[in-house]
């Protein structure tokens, strides 16, 4: 398996306060890794350590399978917290500063990237007069210099209007699908994140609670009829023979989750009762992604 990022017990402390606590994260090549956590959970600090802006007190990491981080960071583009831009310059001038600082000789690179992030027609407009979305896109443009293989984005859609969010979402999907850039992205807008992420990591109080794939998340959030019965085996047989339902599973002893025929649950209940099954509970379950994440993070709204 090709990993772009692998951390081993990465820890950061400020004084006695542990902000990131022994995080073992694996980001596979091609992933759009959605990094989720409440305010102060440690997302930004973790990303800053990966980008080389902060130093861990413990633990190690590998970038592109190498421990020579300084060398590998050339392959990373990052936009962490606010984009580092000069307000009194135009977008093109900001890009020129970066091009010269990175020693990129191809002058057309500036135009190409600006075109890609749809900022090529901003002319002499100073960056301080840009909208939030434009600033974010310029931040992404700066991160895209040197054609990174791995993009680290911290809350890139924060404060954007719906149109701005869609623009950034489309841009990230394009980068991932067309340029094969692996992306580590954190966001508070979980619904949006779930539209692009292929893998998730949940961080709480500095601890990486869980990592899972998009498919697994969909499975967990899938709408179903949940049945708590006295005999799962007999109930399963009735479902198949009488109701012709085969799409179900048994997540725990005594519990059945039925994923089809959800508009006629009364029929399932009827057949099971007629078959002599004692139904202790029967209800429709499943939630949206936002609700699921909220449950995981402890039920508060500020994920």
């Amino acid at each position, binding site marked *: 398996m090709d990993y772009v990022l692998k951390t081993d017990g990465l820890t950061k402390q400020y004084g006695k306060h542990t902000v990131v606590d022994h995080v073992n994260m694996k980001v596979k090549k091609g992933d759009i890794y959605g990094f989720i956590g409440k305010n102060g959970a440690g997302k930004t600090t973790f990303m*800053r350590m990966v*980008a*080389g*802006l*902060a*130093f861990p007190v413990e633990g190690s990491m590998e970038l592109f399978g190498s421990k020579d981080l*300084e*060398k*590998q*960071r*050339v392959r*990373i*583009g*990052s936009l*962490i*917290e*606010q*984009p*580092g*831009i*000069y307000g*009194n*310059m135009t977008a093109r*001038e900001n890009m*020129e*500063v*970066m091009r*010269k*600082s*990175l*020693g990129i000789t191809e002058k057309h690179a500036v135009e190409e990237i600006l075109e890609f992030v749809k900022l090529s027609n901003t002319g002499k407009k100073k960056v301080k007069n840009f909208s939030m979305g434009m600033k974010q896109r310029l931040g992404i443009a*700066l991160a895209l*210099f*040197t054609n990174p293989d791995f993009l680290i984005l911290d809350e890139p859609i924060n404060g954007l209007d719906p149109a701005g969010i869609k623009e950034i979402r489309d841009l990230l999907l394009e980068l991932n699908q067309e340029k094969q850039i692996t992306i580590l992205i954190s966001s508070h807008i979980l619904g949006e994140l779930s539209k692009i992420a292929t893998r998730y990591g949940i961080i709480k109080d500095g601890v990486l609670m869980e990592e899972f794939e998009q498919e697994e998340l969909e499975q967990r959030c899938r709408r179903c009829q949940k049945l708590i019965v006295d005999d799962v085996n007999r109930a399963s047989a009735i479902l198949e023979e009488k109701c012709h339902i085969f799409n179900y599973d048994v997540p725990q002893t005594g519990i059945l989750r039925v994923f089809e025929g959800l508009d006629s649950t009364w029929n399932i209940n009827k057949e099971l009762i007629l078959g002599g099954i004692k139904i202790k509970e029967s209800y429709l379950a499943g939630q949206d992604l936002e609700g699921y994440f909220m449950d995981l993070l402890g039920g508060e709204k500020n994920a």
Partner: protein
Amino acid sequence: MLNMLHGEFYKLKKSRSFYISILIAMGLILLLYATLHMVDNIHEEEQSGNTRIVVKGEEEVVLDEEGNVVPISQQVGIMGIVQQMFDSHFTEFIIAIFISIFVTAEFGNGAIKNVVGKGYSRRTVFLSKLIAAVFVTIIMSLAIIMIIIVLGIPFLGKKGLEMLVWKDLSIYTGIQMIFGISFTGIITLVGEFTRSLAASISINLGILMFSTSITAGLDLLFHNLNWKASQYWVLDFQSACPITNFDQTFIIRGIIVSVIWFLITTVIGVMHFKKADVK
């Protein structure tokens, strides 16, 4: 490193604050010349008896070879104005504010993370910022001297230029630049430590305004021990630097003190930035 400097110089070219700083310096110099010119006018009117202004006290009158009174503006001359701009740290004030805006602000506003995050070593990043600041010091010092000379022509006339001792002016400029570069190391270090534009400007201006008073106090305090703090402080050398009749001991000592201060601040800055988290 060269790439980084390339980027810094591009920023400098595009920096509006650079041109504003030069304009402020120009305004200050103009004010100095105008004040001298005004004083001369008052004296002239006083001598011709056409003034209502009463000047108390005796003033030493300097006469030329033909017995004419030499105007104060000519007594001070271009060299005097140059000395005034450096001795009183006017030049350093302007440089400190501009460097704080140009270099220091980047430590705080996030722009520095663009290059740190691209794998440049921390040492390279800090040194490139320091070199850019040194470059700014040299350019601004030279620009200020040029402005003094150019503005001196309409105020002092041809005589002003004739009185200029180019050799002394060049030596003085060189020495002051060494002191200035040394202080630039301190400005950059303060900026790296504070990571805040306001704090950096306040601390640097505070150092410029009060440090020589503190060293003077320390000189008095330790006079019995025959130890002078002012002999180890670069701004004291800047204030005490003569513009003619250079004392070799003073120059050598000044250069050594400047180099030591510059090296110390550079090493501390690199060491601190190597371990510091970037915003």
